[in-house]
């Protein structure tokens, strides 16, 4: 089986663009990714397009109507917050299977402001209508409180995640925000669902990202191995059965399952990972995922944020892009934007926020309901 490589990848600066359209935003990212590797739309053998808000709207085809109707197959994916990563993974599978040699994956989303509703409705007991509990901040707040009651994690430790990620985004010109948010500001911001304040909730923004994925043979033929990034693992999971059938979406188990599979597929361990872009949809979530991804031992996540291990310059920097908390979270685009961030570091092109000497990186997204996607990316050593 061939190895698959990212040869071209880019994202637009995340923001709010109410006067633009979803296909228009997607087309911009697609052209940026093609430019990144010097290829054209007529070189692409298939398009995998992730978008959630207009899941029935044939967004991929509408992107081609803007940049070139070459008649290639288009697959549109929707998988909650794992939508973009799922589109990328479909492309990766087509390369691994040897069906195509070079394909395009696009993730795009246009979002309004406000709270996101709950997913995973279950069978006949509508959580939101009944209990007012379907707000995403509340779901992740309860998951955080579970951690707090087990390990003594504090409100301040959760808040530090937001301080760190906002600081990181001051170094990322493509992030929605470039502002420092001191600890007091984060802790005193409007309380949305304790312990998540407004600054501990991801930002709803518009955005798009795209990647050109290529077989090894084709990448060599095209002379694109110089800046290529190897996809050494691509994993997608759903919720495995758990001893205790939690009534709230289980944000931990599918991530633990996915990370175990990803490390096995890539033939590495968590200690080999130099940087991680993980799903910090809420500050509480980032703390949980340190442990779910094996970046620290169970119960040590509070210590990990206190010690600076997860900050730029630390043992394993997490969300150097600013993360969903400050770079922004356009649902369908997030998965590919994470892959862009890690690829940029592996290429040594991340400027002021460069993780020095980065050789292996990991991306993680989780869509409630649930879908967890993890990718392990490796620098190509010629």
């Amino acid at each position, binding site marked *: 089986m061939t190895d698959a490589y990212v040869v071209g990848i880019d994202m637009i600066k995340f923001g709010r663009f109410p006067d633009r359209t979803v296909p228009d935003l997607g087309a911009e990212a697609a052209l940026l990714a093609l430019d990144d590797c010097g290829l054209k739309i007529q070189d692409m053998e298939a398009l995998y397009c992730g978008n959630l808000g207009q899941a029935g709207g044939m967004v991929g085809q509408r992107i081609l109507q803007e940049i070139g109707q070459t008649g290639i197959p288009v697959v549109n994916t929707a998988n909650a917050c794992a939508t973009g990563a799922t589109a990328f993974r479909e492309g990766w599978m087509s390369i691994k299977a040897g069906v195509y040699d070079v394909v395009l994956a696009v993730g795009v989303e246009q979002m309004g402001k406000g709270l996101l509703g709950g997913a995973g409705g279950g*069978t006949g007991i*509508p959580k939101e209508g009944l*209990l007012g509990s379907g*707000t995403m*901040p509340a779901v992740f707040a309860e998951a955080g*409180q579970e951690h707090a*009651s087990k390990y003594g994690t504090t409100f301040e430790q959760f808040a530090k995640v937001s301080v760190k990620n906002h600081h990181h985004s001051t170094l990322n010109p493509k992030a929605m925000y470039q502002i420092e948010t001191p600890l007091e500001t984060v802790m005193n911001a409007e309380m949305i669902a304790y*312990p998540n304040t407004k600054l501990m909730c991801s930002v709803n923004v518009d955005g798009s990202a795209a990647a050109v994925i290529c077989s090894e043979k084709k990448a060599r033929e095209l002379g694109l191995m110089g800046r290529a990034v190897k996809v050494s693992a691509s994993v997608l999971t759903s919720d495995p059965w758990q001893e205790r*059938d939690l009534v709230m979406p289980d944000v931990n188990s599918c991530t633990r399952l996915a990370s175990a599979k990803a490390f096995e597929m890539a033939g590495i361990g968590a200690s080999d990972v130099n940087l991680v872009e993980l799903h910090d949809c809420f500050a509480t979530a980032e703390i949980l995922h340190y442990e779910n991804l094996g970046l620290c031992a169970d119960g040590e996540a509070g210590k990990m944020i206190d010690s600076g291990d997860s900050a730029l310059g630390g043992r394993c920097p997490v969300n150097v892009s600013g993360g969903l908390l400050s770079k922004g979270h356009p649902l369908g685009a997030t998965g590919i934007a994470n892959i862009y961030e890690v690829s940029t570091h592996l290429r040594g092109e991340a400027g002021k926020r460069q993780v020095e000497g980065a050789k292996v990186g990991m991306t993680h997204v989780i869509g409630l309901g649930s879908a967890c996607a993890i990718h392990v990316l490796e620098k190509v050593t010629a």
Partner: protein
Amino acid sequence: MSGIPLPTPNPITRPHWEGCREGLLRVQRCSACGDFVFIPRVGCPRCLLETLEWVESVGRGTLYSYSVVHRPQRPEFEVPYVVAIVELDEGWHMLTNLVECEPEDVRVGMKVEVSYREMSDEITLPYFRPRP
């Protein structure tokens, strides 16, 4: 909480809602593995068999986790309110609201019991409140 949207019982959930109306907290249990299953569904997610039967819970338990919601998704909900995961004495989990308790007094591990609120002729909601 008045005027909030109410659930519509369906063939799978109806025994639960009818129980609430009668003051009984009904939950499904798998006759093969013995697991309690909530929310109601067709088959046991562990055994992958349609071996679920309805049993009555004692309606007492402890607070497993919670959040205090200050910004609701729908305007019908009065804030702040406490969304809670209760661990029933039988070991299963239920999502509910904690009532008759100030948000600042909520603690993980506190003892709670079911407290029914009649919302309409058909629907009675199973909230929980602190117990001594």
